[in-house]
């Protein structure tokens, strides 16, 4: 077989060109990775192969999360959650706060009280996130739960009404998810087609990773250095609630921060609950609710919502996974 000299010289030239493209071709599309402390955690936004102007969009996404934090934190002059707590009657709030509360009430109702945004007094009583956490007396817990329950907040448009004037609103189990959603929307509206908004392990992935879905590691609840599973997903939010996140120990017993609103004590049926949902606000609320309800009722709750899946580690270490995740999970 004869080859022309042209073809023979072309072969190494083409190989050289391919190498140069592989090595330097994507130089104008470097990743943008920014981090900020927000909402009591480290928020990281990653945009791989970022087009020009992405850094500005990321800055605006962080500013939006900060705005949501100010709006929904339990205290502070600009907080609508604090204004609801202080109100003795119906109060008009912005459409975003009303939207978050309406979503939270839906989860509260469908979970039979496994989720509650009126636990402000209970959380203050335990003080788990303060310098001096303590185990309250049973009568103190009963008192802090007065007025709480699946119907403790009502919305009518942008008007919010508490069932009990003493109710202290805490949107901590849903507001972070909403802030993630807002940041993701800013990025999408700015033309970003691939990104991760990660707020301390609660996250939203935009698009895919390029030639494959995003690979989302799920932390093992009892081995901080190990993975429980890896999920291959695109365009979803993933939130994990676990009893290992924040806790204290007293008299040889561990008390974590995920309270069962029906008892006022840390929920004891699960070690961790991961929820995959179309929005981070929904995933956030459902992860808390399903953690509280445990394997059977928790996974049944997820079925009430469209495109929602879950992975739960029960208190005894048994792993439960919903049908829709079975083809997307990889075990270590």
């Amino acid at each position, binding site marked *: 077989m004869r080859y022309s000299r042209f073809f023979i010289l072309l072969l190494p030239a083409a190989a050289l060109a391919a190498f140069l493209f592989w090595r330097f071709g994507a130089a104008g599309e470097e990743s943008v990775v920014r981090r900020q402390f927000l909402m009591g955690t480290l928020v990281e936004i990653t945009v791989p192969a970022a087009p020009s102007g992405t850094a500005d969009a990321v800055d605006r996404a962080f500013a939006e999360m900060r705005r949501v934090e100010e709006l929904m934190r339990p205290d502070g002059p600009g907080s609508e959650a604090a204004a609801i707590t202080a109100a003795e009657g119906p109060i008009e709030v912005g459409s975003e706060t009303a939207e978050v509360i309406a979503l939270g009430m839906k989860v509260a109702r469908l979970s039979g009280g496994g989720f509650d945004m009126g636990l402000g007094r209970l959380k203050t009583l335990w003080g788990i996130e303060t310098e001096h956490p303590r185990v309250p007396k049973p009568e103190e817990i009963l008192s802090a739960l007065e007025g709480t329950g699946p119907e403790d907040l009502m919305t009518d448009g942008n008007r919010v009404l508490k069932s009990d004037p003493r109710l202290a609103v805490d949107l901590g189990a849903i507001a972070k998810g909403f802030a993630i959603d807002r940041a993701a929307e800013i990025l999408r509206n700015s033309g970003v087609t691939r990104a991760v908004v990660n707020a*301390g392990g609660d996250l939203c992935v935009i698009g895919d990773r390029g030639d494959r879905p995003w690979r989302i590691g*799920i932390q093992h609840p009892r081995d901080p250095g190990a*993975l429980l599973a890896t999920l291959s997903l695109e365009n979803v939010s993933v939130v994990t609630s676990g009893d290992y996140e924040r806790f204290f120990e007293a008299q040889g017993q561990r008390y974590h921060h995920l309270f069962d609103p029906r008892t006022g004590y840390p929920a004891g049926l699960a070690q961790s609950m991961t929820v995959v949902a179309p929005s981070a606000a929904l995933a956030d609320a459902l992860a808390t609710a399903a953690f509280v309800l445990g394997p059977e009722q928790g996974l049944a709750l997820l079925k009430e919502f469209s495109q929602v899946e879950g992975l739960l580690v029960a208190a005894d270490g048994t792993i439960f996974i919903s049908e829709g995740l079975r083809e997307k999970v990889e075990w270590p």
Partner: protein
Amino acid sequence: MALKSVLRRMTLLDRAIVMVLGMFAGSLLLGINSRAPGENILVEREGKIIFTAPLKEEREIRLKGIRGEAVLIVREGGAEMIEAPCPRKVCMGMGRIDQDGEIIACVPNGLLVRIEGGNEPEKTYDVLSR
């Protein structure tokens, strides 16, 4: 010589293939060696880098955070927070970091310590949910 004999018997196509294979091997070596050579420690406060230094230079750094002074120690190619003003001292519990991309986050004190440069260990995931 044997090499001359081999070269004499090679066709132009044989030589081109050898050249391509040689370039491929060379590109792999170049790829490995072109990774970021620096291994630095960086400290950020409110999104701004307030301290950076080579990880190989051993030192003790006093860092001013929102809540007070924290102490970071750099030794034997790694870094560790040894004092923190916050009550729960979570950053001290994070232990030692020495790989590219690893971080120590002191959330209440608003400090982020991270390592840059060197060869990042291969991860099996893009992002961690916890």
